[in-house]
């Protein structure tokens, strides 16, 4: 099998958890409700970007560990590039997530859309928003600041704080995940896999 084909199959394997997530997600609510009108469509898109973004975040964390079966299929350089790309896509989707949800609130009034983006009275959303801010800042630093490697490393690791914030948000938010325990536990499982991968890598380096 040539390298391109190996990489293609490797990417499919890596993205398989997202496909499973989507398969579970489509069973949660009927399409007639999900896309009933513009507002519901935006709500659906907002929720979906959050779910997929979180799944990609978890996969990206798993990929930063050298997984032997995977490294037999794909070369390490490609796995590393997948780790970066999936991490970036996770951030992009997670950035879209609150914005689209806020836009869906505009039909009720701008006040509600704005209030949604300043969730001082909603700790669950606040955890999600803070996680997103930390993730975005850490990503910018890892992109553009490489002068001090130790600092760069610590900032990159601070994404784990964002990961924890996202975990809390997922655990308590009322959304598709609260309607479907299967969806919730599947995402929690993916996130746990990411956390275990991180812990494994830290321990193995001791």
């Amino acid at each position, binding site marked *: 099998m040539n390298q391109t084909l190996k990489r293609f199959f490797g990417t499919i394997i890596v993205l398989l958890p997202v496909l499973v997530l989507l398969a579970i997600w489509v069973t949660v609510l009927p399409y007639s409700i999900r896309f009933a*009108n513009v507002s519901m469509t935006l709500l659906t898109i907002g929720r979906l970007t959050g779910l997929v973004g979180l799944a990609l975040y978890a996969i990206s964390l798993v990929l930063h560990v050298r997984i032997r079966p995977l490294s037999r299929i794909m070369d390490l350089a490609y796995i590393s590039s997948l780790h970066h790309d999936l991490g970036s896509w996770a951030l992009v989707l997670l950035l879209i997530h609150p914005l689209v949800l806020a836009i869906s609130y505009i039909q009720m*009034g701008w006040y509600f859309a*704005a209030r949604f983006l300043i969730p001082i009275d909603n700790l669950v959303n606040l955890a999600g928003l803070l996680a997103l801010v930390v993730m975005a800042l850490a990503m910018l630093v890892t992109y553009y600041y490489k002068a001090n490697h130790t600092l760069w490393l610590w900032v990159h690791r601070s994404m784990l704080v964002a990961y924890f914030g996202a975990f809390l948000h997922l655990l308590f938010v009322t959304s598709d995940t609260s309607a479907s325990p299967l969806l919730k536990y599947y995402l929690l499982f993916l996130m746990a896999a990411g956390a275990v991968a991180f812990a494994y890598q830290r321990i193995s380096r001791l």
Partner: protein
Amino acid sequence: MKKFTTICIVLFCLIYGVILAGGAISHVPASLEYEAATSAAVTVKSGSTATTGTSTTQSNTSSTSQNTGTTATTYSVTDVATHSSSTNCWMIVSTKVYDVSAYISTGSHRAGNSAITPYCGKDATSVFGVHNSSGYSVLSGYYIGTLK
């Protein structure tokens, strides 16, 4: 990917700012409007033992203080199943029974009445889980009893 992500972060900040600015300059007392919209539907139900469609939908069972929920009336699944139309719509959410006919008549559900009517006369617990606390708060105004 680096440039694309950076552009997305900048766009995020811009749109975030626009929405916040929109909220700040919006001089419509939107909070009152929203509270009114949600609580109006609740009030229709809670204060209407003898008016509107609510009394018509409670004809086949005893109904002591159903609207306030202070004395819990119990209903069987079969009782609930007989109220399965959009004008006479009961549903079960977490073993509690709600008469949402009045809410349907207000047409104030975000996804439209078609999101509610398929669950009239049925258990909607799993689907209702998508709502946030304000959704549950609105629903509580339509409480009529518990499941046997």
